[in-house]
């Protein structure tokens, strides 16, 4: 496959490399764990609506985590 305006060459190379890996390998490289302040400080949270969850994120999480709406 050749690069297209929608799929630049560098991304295409990454997609093709990933397609040659097994699912198990892809998952091994993809899932990471780093501590997220506030977010990781409770063992359980539940929200009645997604709007409630989004609002909680905006009001409680550090903005640099990126959970705020643009």
């Amino acid at each position, binding site marked *: *496959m050749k690069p*297209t305006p*929608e*799929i*630049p060459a560098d*991304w*295409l190379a*990454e*997609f093709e*490399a*990933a*397609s040659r890996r097994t*699912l*198990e390998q*892809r*998952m*091994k*490289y*993809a*899932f*990471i*764990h*780093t501590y*997220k302040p506030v977010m*990781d400080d*409770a*063992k*359980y*949270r*539940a*929200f*009645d*609506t*997604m709007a*409630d*969850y*989004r609002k909680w*994120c905006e009001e409680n999480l550090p*903005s640099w*985590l*990126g*959970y*705020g*709406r*643009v």
Partner: protein
Amino acid sequence: MAAFEYRQAEEIRDAFARNGVRYLFIGKSGAILLGFPDTTQDADLFIEKSPNNARSLISSLGELGFKLTEAQAREIERGKDFVQLKDGPFDLDLVFAPDGIERFEDAWRRHVNVEGFPVCHPDDIIASKISANRAKDREGLPRLQAFREYWLKNRGT
């Protein structure tokens, strides 16, 4: 807490199948199952919102080692849109009403089976990220949309 592993995804798949849970992998974890090369921290599952499915889900979570209190289990059964579990063998986000997707049934009709894992179609993953409109999603969206083009061309779907 260690990172989510393939083996744990298999455990979810098997426990949910035993209990008949209707669910789909969604979000970046879903995209990764489809082949998108990127990183993420949590597994996100889109769970059909119904009392029966919630009861099956609660049984499955118990089998997987998540220790829900009775109050938490009742809460999930009554119906929540979003539940975050960080007290089990891995972190899990349970989404019952993802932004940008009207009904579970619609997403189920379009879903993709990846080695036995039910995964949202890339269009639904992208729709939910566009609709959520978070800074962290906005940043990665062009690359995810490029992956969608690649995926469609190579899967013929």
